């Protein structure tokens, strides 16, 4: 089976306010099409690790490979292009662009990629929003919808370029049980049906146990996988 992600002895230090060893020798592999949950207490380093895995944070020791490409040591522009095409990231605090409509927010990464025409992108964006039950909010400004709706728009944005790896930092943290189920089913289908790799940080035990694998962290280390 092809490997989607391989982390090798990753160490991360924060220098301010004092030197702090946030990730301590993290190593693991994730296969393509796997749906993995990452759990652990607040402050154990889940977000920190996800930022490294998503190529945004380049300030670490160790090595990282995604889709059999070495990520460690690549230039920022190369990494940005890689993220645009291969990674969908759902932030812990969803982060939409408030000046744009929900639809535009979803479309922007695809417009950047420029693989499809504007009409096709708009159509796809609508479809994604409808799947997540926020089709009705498409033309509202992103700052004028509820937190849960914002989170679902952010998920739609992460999926718009059909990335091979989807990473979520508590992607369902703001959702009720019905919408959590919708998102879970969506991830399930993407993993099993379309061979996408899902890596989701979650505090939701139910969610974690229904996924393929749980990686449990504590104090910057993996204690079970």
């Amino acid at each position, binding site marked *: 089976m092809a490997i989607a992600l391989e982390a090798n002895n990753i160490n991360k230090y924060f220098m301010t306010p004092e030197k702090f060893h946030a990730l301590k020798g993290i190593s693991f592999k994730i296969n393509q099409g796997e749906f993995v949950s990452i759990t652990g207490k607040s402050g154990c380093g889940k*977000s920190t690790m996800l*930022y490294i895995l*998503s190529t*945004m*944070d380049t300030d670490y020791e160790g090595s990282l490979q995604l889709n059999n490409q070495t990520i460690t040591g690549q230039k*920022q*522009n190369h990494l*940005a*292009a*890689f*993220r*645009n*095409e291969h990674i969908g*990231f759902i*932030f812990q605090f969803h*982060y*939409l*662009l*408030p*000046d*744009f409509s929900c639809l535009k927010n979803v479309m*922007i*990464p695809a*417009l*950047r*990629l*420029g693989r499809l*025409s*504007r009409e096709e992108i708009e159509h796809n964006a609508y479809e994604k929003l409808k799947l997540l039950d926020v089709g009705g909010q498409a033309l509202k400004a992103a700052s004028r919808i509820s937190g849960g709706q914002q989170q679902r728009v952010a998920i739609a*944005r992460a999926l718009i370029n059909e990335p091979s790896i989807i990473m979520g930092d508590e992607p369902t943290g703001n959702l009720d049980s019905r919408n959590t189920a919708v998102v879970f089913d969506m991830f399930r289908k993407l993993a099993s049906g379309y061979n996408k790799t899902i890596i989701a940080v979650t505090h939701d035990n139910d969610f974690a146990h229904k996924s393929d694998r749980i990686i449990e962290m504590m104090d910057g280390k993996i204690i079970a996988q």
Partner: protein
Amino acid sequence: MKIGINTEIAFTYLVSRRKQTIVAALGVTFGISMFIFMNALITGTNEYSEDTMLNTTPHIRLYHDNELSNGRMLNRFAGNKTINLISNPQLVPGDNRIVNPDAVTSLLKQRNDVTALSQQVSANVIYSNSSVQENGNIFGVNILEQNKMFDIASTIMAGSLKSLSENANAIIIGAGLAQRLNLSKGDYIKVTASNGASKSLQVVGIFKTTIKSIDNTKTYCNIPIVQQLLQKDRAYITDIYINVKDYYNAPAIGKSIEQLTGYTAEAWQSSNEQSLAGKKIRDIIANSVVITILIVAGFGIYNILNMVIYEKIKEIAILKATGFQGAHVVGIFIRQAMLIGFIGAMAGLAFGWLISWTVSKMYIGLGNVTYLPIAFHVKHYIQGGLFGMATAFFAGYIPAVKASKVDPVQIIRG
């Protein structure tokens, strides 16, 4: 498509902060309208003073200058057996005549950079009517030829140029002289040269250039009159006035005419250095004012963009997280600056035109300046637009580069 999304984001940011956009654009508007107005005024003034100069000075004046004595005659007399040196050579006052002026004129006519030629001979004279006397210069000219150069016809108040060419003993005088000697058309005026020769001439025309020194002293008559006053022959011509196509190039053309004819050619620029210095000073003043204003406008754009970037730093981080590269972020903010510059510059061009037009209608009425001389040149408007955009570009570049260096993780972590 790639251009599309950057422009779209830039435009959305502009529209969502309408007030700041307008303030920043107004800075550019002010700068560009000043640029247009200053240029219109300065160019108008320059053109006006150039016109004034060229109304009395030909592009090139060809004359026979006094020569420094040389060893040519000595060599001919003493031969080559000795080396002949003249210590302390002196200027030899010559006849100042142009030998065979018609040949010189027809030689010059063959050049295709020459547009008009006029032979002339002038003399210092005393004008008198009964017992009142005035000093002045009388110019013996072919009035119709000279009119092609200086448009004398447009300054004629009474009589006509044609009657001078038809009447051998006629004279055209300035309005100032006519008033001082109480002369009107049809009256006779006595003209006396320094050698005592005198003539009585009939006034057939009166001109008014509004330049006092000319209206009070200058008169035109036919060439033979001056030759007779100077007691010279019919071939005595001292000056050939030459107008050329490209009069900014007059010094160079003058040089080549000097080589062609052997006489001295004086370009209008060298006889009007004073005025040209004035032009240079005006240009410098205008440019420094305009540059100052544009710099201020540039700082306006710089400030606004810095503010936008400070406010949008989270969104920049998100854009970078979702795959925007540094150059794309630069592109977004440069476009924003250029849009501000474009809006501001367009408004500035319109406003600048309006100011220029309004001022050109202001009555001054001093001497020969009735309305402020204002020039309307397309060139200035193109330059103004380009300057506005360039200012916006440079003002936007620094903040844009700063924005492109945002580290997404640092911002997203908070």
